[in-house]
C-alpha cells in the first residue's frame, strides 16, 4: 500500500477495509459502531465545536487561547481541564500519553492503574485505556469543546476513539508525525496512515460534525527553523487533510523570538494556505492561523519564561492570529502545575488584549521584508515538490525526501537527508546556515546573506557550533550579577 500513495481521497471501501483491519490487529475487536458514534457526535456538537470557536475568534478578532495538557487518571484530567476552563482556555485539550501513541495500549493501561489523581505515571491521558464511555463523561462534563492532542505515525485508533468520544478537533499530520517524531518510518507510510484519520474526520464532517485539525508541519521540531520551511510542512499537511475532506484547518506558526519574523510567519502561512488550497481546487476549507509559543528549549526561570511568552504574544497579537497555543512558565522545568497553566493563559490574554488594540500601528517595513522572503522561499520549495509529483503533493513529497528538495534540520528520521541547518542572525531571526538541496531562490539567499553579515562579517565562518549554541538562544542567560547587566553575546 505504502508504495503508491497519492493524494487521492480514500474510497469508502478502502477506508472500511482498513478500519476492520486496524481494530482487529491493534485492539483485537470489531470497530466501534460508526453510526452510533456519528449520532452521538452530532448531538454532542450542538453544545459547540472547536470549529465554531475558531470561526468566532476570526470574526471578532479576539484570539482563542488554548493550552496543552494531559495526565493519566480520569479525575486528574477532569480537574486539570476544569482549571484550564476557569483560567479561560477557549477550548479544552486532552493530550494523550506517548505509550498510547506508540500503540502500547496494554502497557498504558497498566500505568494508568498505578496512577492516582495526584500522581500520573504517564505523560498524558490514555484515551484508549479509559474507553469511550468514560471519555464521553469527561467531555460532556464541560461546556467548552475539546481537542484531542497526540502525535505519532499511527494514531488511527486514538483518532477513532477521540472522535467517537466527542472530541471535535485533532492534532498533527504526516509531515510532523513521520519526519519529526519517528526514527524509521518512511514518509509514504506516515501519509497513508494519516490519510485514514483525515478521511475519518471527513466522514464526521459530512455527517454534520465539522471536525478541525492542527496542521503542524515542521513547526514543532523543538529547534529554531526558517519559517518558510516550517510552512512547507504545514501546507503539505493541510493539502493532504483537505483532500480527504477536512474542512477546518489550524495552520501552525511557531514563534521564535524575533517579532518581525514571527509576525510575517503568521501572515505568510495563511497566505500560502489560501494559495495552495486554491491551486489544488480545495477552496471550501476554512483556515485559522495558530500561533504557537516557542517550542524549543525554554528558560528555566519563571520570570524569563514569562518574558519569552510575552514576546511571542506580541507577535501573535500584531499578526492578529485567531488562535494561540500557549506554553507554560514551567515549560523549562517539567510538566506544569495547574496553577502555572492558568497563569500562562492569563498573561497571554492580558497582552493579547493590550497589544491587540494597537496592532495596526506595527505593520512595519521589516515585517514586509520578512513576509516577502518567507513567501518566495516557501513557494519555491512547494512548487518544486508539487512539480516533482506532477501536480500531486503526496507523490512529490515522497520523492522530494529522497532528492532532498524536501529536507529539514535535526530530524530524527533516517530517511531525511538532514543537510539543512538553521542559524540565528544578530536580531535573532532564523536563517539558513546551509540550505542543502532546497531550491531556495537566489534573491532569498542574498537577502539572508545580507542579514547574516550583521552577525558575522564573514557568514561562511559560522559553523555547526554556532547552530548548537543557537539552540539555547532563548534561554538567554547572559546575566552578569556583578554589574547587574546583561553581557551581550
Amino acid at each position, binding site marked *: 500500500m505504502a508504495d503508491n500513495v497519492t493524494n487521492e481521497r480514500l474510497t469508502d471501501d478502502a477506508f472500511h477495509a482498513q478500519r476492520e483491519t486496524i481494530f482487529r490487529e491493534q485492539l483485537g475487536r470489531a470497530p466501534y459502531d460508526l453510526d452510533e458514534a456519528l449520532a452521538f457526535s452530532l448531538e454532542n456538537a450542538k453544545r459547540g465545536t472547536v470549529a465554531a470557536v475558531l470561526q468566532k475568534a476570526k470574526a471578532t478578532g479576539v484570539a482563542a487561547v488554548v493550552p496543552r495538557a494531559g495526565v493519566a487518571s480520569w479525575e486528574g484530567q477532569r480537574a486539570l481541564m476544569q482549571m484550564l476552563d476557569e483560567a479561560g482556555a477557549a477550548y479544552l485539550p486532552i493530550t494523550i500519553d506517548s505509550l498510547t501513541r506508540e500503540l502500547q495500549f496494554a502497557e498504558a493501561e497498566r500505568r494508568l492503574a498505578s496512577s492516582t489523581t495526584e500522581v500520573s505515571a504517564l505523560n498524558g491521558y490514555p484515551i484508549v485505556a479509559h474507553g469511550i464511555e468514560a471519555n464521553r463523561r469527561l467531555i460532556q462534563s464541560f461546556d467548552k469543546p475539546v481537542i484531542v492532542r497526540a502525535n505519532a505515525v499511527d494514531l488511527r485508533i486514538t483518532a477513532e476513539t477521540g472522535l467517537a468520544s466527542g472530541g471535535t478537533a485533532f492534532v498533527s499530520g504526516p509531515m510532523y508525525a513521520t519526519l519529526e517524531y*519517528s526514527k524509521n518510518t518512511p514518509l509514504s507510510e506516515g501519509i497513508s496512515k494519516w490519510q485514514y484519520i483525515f478521511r475519518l474526520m471527513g466522514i464526521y464532517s459530512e455527517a454534520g460534525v465539522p471536525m478541525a485539525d492542527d496542521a503542524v508541519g515542521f513547526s514543532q521540531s523543538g529547534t529554531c527553523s526558517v519559517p518558510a520551511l516550517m510552512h512547507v510542512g504545514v501546507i503539505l499537511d493541510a493539502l493532504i487533510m483537505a483532500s480527504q475532506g477536512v474542512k477546518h484547518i489550524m495552520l501552525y506558526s511557531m514563534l521564535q523570538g524575533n517579532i518581525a519574523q514571527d509576525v510575517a510567519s503568521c501572515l505568510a502561512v495563511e497566505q500560502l494556505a489560501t494559495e495552495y488550497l486554491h491551486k489544488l481546487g480545495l477552496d471550501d476549507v476554512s483556515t485559522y492561523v495558530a500561533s504557537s509559543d516557542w517550542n524549543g528549549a525554554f528558560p*528555566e526561570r519563571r520570570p524569563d519564561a514569562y518574558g519569552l511568552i510575552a514576546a511571542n504574544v506580541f507577535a501573535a497579537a500584531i499578526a492578529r492570529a485567531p488562535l494561540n497555543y500557549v506554553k507554560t512558565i*514551567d515549560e523549562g522545568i*517539567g510538566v506544569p502545575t495547574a496553577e502555572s497553566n492558568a497563569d500562562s493563559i492569563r498573561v497571554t490574554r492580558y497582552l493579547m488584549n493590550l497589544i491587540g488594540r494597537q496592532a495596526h500601528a506595527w505593520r512595519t517595513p521589516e515585517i514586509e521584508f520578512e513576509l516577502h522572503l518567507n513567501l518566495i522561499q516557501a513557494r519555491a520549495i512547494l512548487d518544486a515538490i508539487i512539480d516533482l509529483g506532477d501536480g500531486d503533493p503526496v507523490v512529490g513529497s515522497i520523492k522530494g525526501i529522497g532528492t532532498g528538495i524536501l529536507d529539514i534540520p535535526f530530524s*530524527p528520521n533516517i530517511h531525511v537527508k538532514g543537510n539543512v541547518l538553521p542559524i540565528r542572525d544578530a536580531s535573532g531571526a532564523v536563517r539558513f546556515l546551509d540550505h542543502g538541496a532546497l531550491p531556495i531562490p537566489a534573491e532569498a539567499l542574498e537577502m539572508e546573506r545580507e542579514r547574516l553579515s550583521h552577525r558575522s562579517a564573514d557568514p561562511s565562518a559560522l559553523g555547526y557550533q554556532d547552530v548548537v549554541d543557537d*539552540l539555547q538562544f532563548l534561554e538567554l542567560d547572559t546575566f552578569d550579577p556583578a554589574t547587574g547587566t546583561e553581557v551581550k553575546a
Partner: protein
Amino acid sequence: MTESLQGARVVIGSIGDDIHVVGITILGHALRNAGAEVIQLGIQTPVEEFVATAVAEDADAVFVSSSNGHAAIFCDGVRGLMAAAGADDVLLYVGGNLANTAAADWSEVEARFLAMGFDRAYPSRTQPAQAISDLVADLAQRRSASNG
C-alpha cells in the same frame, strides 16, 4: 578541543517511546569532539537495542537519554539485561528530563535511578562538558582498578 576520551566507545540514544532528539544530537557531537567513538542510536531506542549494541560494539559506556517523562517506565531493566548479556562492566549514565512533573525533587529522582543500577544520573540542562569530565574520571578509575 580536548581529546580526553580518545579510544572510548560510547553508545547513545533516547530510550523507549521518547522522541526527543536535540539533547542526544548535541551530546553525541560533544562526545565525538572530545575524542570518543560515538555509536548514535537516535530516538525511541528499545532497551534491548541499547544492550545488544553495547555488547556488539564493545562499548565502554552507554548514555541513555529520556526526556518525555517516561524514564521510570523504560529505564528499570537496563542494568539487569546488561548483566544477563555479560556486559556488567559497561558504565551506565542516564540523563535528559528524568522526573515527570515540575514539582519533583532532584535528589529523590537521582536516588531512584542510581538504585536502578545507573552509575550516574543527570538533571536536565546538564552541560556535555560535565558528563565528559565524569566519564574521563570514571574510565581512569576503572583502568587503575583493573591494573591494581
